[in-house]
Each structure stands twice: as structure tokens, then as C-alpha cells.
């Protein structure tokens, strides 16, 4: 459903991505591994329209999206949950969720999404009227993911969902990721926590210095000598 073709991305004069190409199929979890500064977040930000490639193309469901501003990409039902989560700390949990579906006119669908989200994250229902700034780290991550889900996205992109979470919350988060895929959402996840990511993912890509150096099923990647040595520490 998503195919990225030879994109080159620059931060002003510094090239961050070099001819990056990869695909995401419907209903799969694709993980992107790489160390700090390898270009993982850059990739997601480019897909979300916060950055634009200087060359190459990005096709989502037969539509070229590489030149679109991010609010339009969001309306094509691609959601990005950035590193550290995107939420508004001065607003209540409910207001945050409501804004997750900003611009969608169908109120019935919004209420439906909200019910669905409360089922996955019951704690958000309990804390609906609280300010987002009063939530714990794990709850904030849930809120950020829930916000991304309010539009029932076809593609959900998660940037370091385990970042800054306690170990128990990390496995909880990945359990949720799996649950979401089983409910029909396609997921592209960028992660430094390679072990967890490879355990839930279907396919994976390895990003080094802005280039994709490896792409395979997660099972094969787990067996790969290089990945085991450099990313799993085995």
C-alpha cells in the first residue's frame, strides 16, 4: 500500500537519506531498525509530509504524496506518532482525542472511534477530563498512539514507541501494536529496541547512515549474523 522509491532527503545542505526505497504491504508490521542518527525519524517525518524529498517518489494507495503538506497526508489516513508522542499537555485527554480526528465531519464515526479506543486503552476513559500533563509516561504514550488512531488510519507510523518507557510498559506497548495489526491496521514502526521490534514485526529494514543496507522478514533478520552482532548484542 505504501511504496517509497529512491528518495533523497536533505536538512538544508546535509543529506540525511540516500536513495531510500522500501515497501509496506497491507496488514503487516514493518520495522525499521538503525542506530541513533541513521535516518529513521527522518524517514517517518518525510512520509508524514513534515519534510519533502528533493528527488524520488512516495506512493500511497496509487497516489503520489511526496509534495503534500502534512495535514493533507493525515487526511489520506496516514497517522504519525512522533518520538515522545504528539499531544497537547495543556489540554484534557478528551480534547486531545477529539483533535486527533480534526476535520472529520462525521460525528457518528468519531464516537465510534472513541469507543474503540476506550476498549484498547481503558485508562484513557477514566482520565478523560484530566489535563494531558498529569498523565504518567506510559499513559502519555498511550494517549499519543490513541490520538493517531482516532482517524482509524490505514497506515499507522510509530517513532520509537518504547522511548523512555519502563520495561513492563515496553512489552505492553508492543502487545498493543500487535493487537492493532490484528484489528486490521498496517503499521510502520521505527525502533532502537531491536529485540522487541523484531519479535512482533513481519518484515524489517536496516538503516545505516541514511541508506537501507538490509531488508528481509523479521525471522530471517533475527538469524542474520550481522544483525545479531550489531543490533541484538548476541
Amino acid at each position, binding site marked *: 500500500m505504501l511504496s517509497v522509491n529512491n528518495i533523497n532527503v536533505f536538512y*538544508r545542505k546535509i543529506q540525511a537519506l540516500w536513495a531510500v526505497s522500501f515497501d509496506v504491504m497491507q496488514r503487516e508490521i514493518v520495522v525499521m531498525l538503525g542506530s541513533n542518527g541513521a535516518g529513521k525519524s527522518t524517514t517517518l517525518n518525510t512520509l508524514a509530509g513534515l519534510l519533502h524529498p528533493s528527488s524520488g517518489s512516495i506512493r500511497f494507495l496509487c497516489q503520489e504524496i511526496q509534495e503534500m503538506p502534512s*495535514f493533507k497526508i493525515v487526511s489520506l489516513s496516514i497517522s504519525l506518532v512522533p518520538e515522545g508522542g504528539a499531544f497537547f499537555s495543556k489540554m484534557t485527554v478528551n480534547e486531545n482525542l477529539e483533535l486527533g480526528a480534526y476535520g472529520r465531519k462525521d460525528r457518528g464515526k468519531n464516537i465510534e472511534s472513541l469507543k474503540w479506543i476506550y476498549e484498547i486503552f481503558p485508562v484513557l476513559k477514566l482520565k478523560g477530563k484530566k489535563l494531558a500533563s498529569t498523565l504518567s509516561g506510559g499513559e502519555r504514550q498511550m494517549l499519543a498512539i490513541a490520538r493517531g488512531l482516532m482517524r482509524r488510519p490505514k497506515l499507522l507510523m510509530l517513532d520509537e514507541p518504547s522511548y523512555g518507557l519502563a520495561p513492563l510498559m515496553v512489552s505492553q506497548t508492543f502487545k498493543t501494536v500487535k493487537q492493532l495489526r490484528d484489528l486490521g491496521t498496517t503499521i510502520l514502526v521505527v525502533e532502537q529496541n531491536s529485540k522487541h521490534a523484531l519479535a512482533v514485526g513481519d518484515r524489517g529494514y536496516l538503516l545505516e547512515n541514511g541508506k537501507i543496507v538490509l531488508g528481509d522478514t523479521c525471522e530471517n533478520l533475527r538469524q542474520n549474523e550481522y544483525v545479531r552482532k550489531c543490533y541484538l548484542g548476541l
Partner: protein
Amino acid sequence: MKLFLDIIISGLIQGAIYGLIAVGLNLQYGVARVLNVAHGEFVMVGAFATYIMYTVFGINPLLSVAFFSPVSLIAGFLIYKNLFQFIRTSSETAEMFEGNSMLASFGLLYVIQNLALIWWGTSTKAYSYLSFSVGFLGVAFEANRVAALFVGVAVMISFYLFLRYSILGKAIRAAAESPVSAQLSGIDVHRVLGICFGLGVMLACVAGGLVSMMKEITANMGFPYLVTALIVLVLGGLGNIVGSFLGGLIIGLVTAAVMYWQPELSLVASYLIFTIVLLIRPQGIFVRQTNGR
């Protein structure tokens, strides 16, 4: 007691005007990051527009204010879209945008002010509307001042409800807190910031219309209002809309009190408050301390 009430109510009337202007500037600077030094000029334009409507066409000033609100909102939106959005996309950093947009608004200030000087000259103008006196809480006031107070407070309350409960109001608060997160929520941030700038211009024009009912107006009346609005902005906290309105009322009350005892010192008093707030609570007096998590 009577004197006390007199000072309080005069202060509130003046303060409501300051509050409207400061809330407008807060939307422009606190949310859209445009330090619009031409803000006071829109107060002047609103005042003159209302003046002309009344003296030439005999149209009720309050009706003019209602009519000019959407007009000035659209005008402000177009100014943002054609000037400041262009500067925003060509500026590489947020700091650069703040500097460049302030310089551009200086240009706007001179253009508007000089056009006004060419058109109206330096003479002061005034008209009389609702100038009979009414008893208000046992003190006699000119009816136009009481009307201005009520309109000012009504505008602020409806504005607060708009920001608090409407989806566009929520989008504005979201864009104020984090433009990137707002974009990722599907909010067209440029449009929302344009609306914020337009609302700022609208509030300045509304305030100007109300001022013209009570006071003499001149082509260079705008700048002192800008200065007061900046003081109020610091007092109430950047991005804090309620704080700006309350800050406006406080400055109005202080000015009215000092005005009574020592008229020469009223501006000094405002600056004194400004300096003290900057020294003690630079984040503004109405900003709640958040625990640094």
C-alpha cells in the same frame, strides 16, 4: 465610597478596552508568533471607520462595530496569508521568522499611519453618541462608556467560550502549544494561524470602535495602545488569553487610580508594574506553575 466606585468602574471601562487589544496581540504574538507592532494602528482604523460611519452615514457605532468585525477578520487573514505566511516559509528558523515578521509589521505600521495622516491629517475628531448620563451602581456615567464596558465584556466572554469549546478554538490552542503536533493531527496550521492573526485585527478594530464612542480620536492614537498591550501581554503571560484580559483590567484599574491622584504618573505606574512583573514573574502572573515533568 462613591469615589471608590467611580475609580473602579472607570478603571474597568478602560481596562476592558486594554484587555480586548491585548488579547488580540496575544493571538498574533502568542499563537502566530508575529510581534505585530502595527496592532495599535488597527485600533485607530477601527475608531476612524466607526467615526465616519456615524458622522457621514448616521450609522449607530455599535452596529458599525458589529459590521466591521467580520470585515477586519478577513482583512487580517489576508494580511497574514499574503505577507507573514510568505515570510514564515522563507525564514529558516523560528527566531528568524520572529525578527523578520516584526520588521514587516513596522512597515505595516508606517504604511497605515501615513495613509491615515494623508487622509485625515493631524486634527482630533470626536462625535457624541449616547452621551447622556446614566446611573450605574449609584454613580453617574455617560451611557456610551457603560455600553462600551458591556460590549467589551460580552465580546471577551464569547471569545473565551469559542476558544474553550469550539473545534476551531481547540485547533487554535493546539497550534499555540505545538505547531508540529497540530499538523500531524490534520490541522492546516497556516490557515489556523491566519485566522488567529485575523481575530487579533478584529479585536483591535472592535476596541477602536468602542474607544471612538468615548474619546477624541487622532491618526496617531494607535501607538500608546500598542505599548499598553505589550505591558498587559507580559503581565498576563504570553499565550494566556484569560490572563491578557484580566491583565488589561488590572492595568485599567491602576491607571484609573493613579489618574485620580496624580494624572502625570499614570503611564509611569504602568511601566512600574511592567518592570516589577518582568523581574519577579517573567512568565506572567496568571500562568500556573506546572510541575516540571
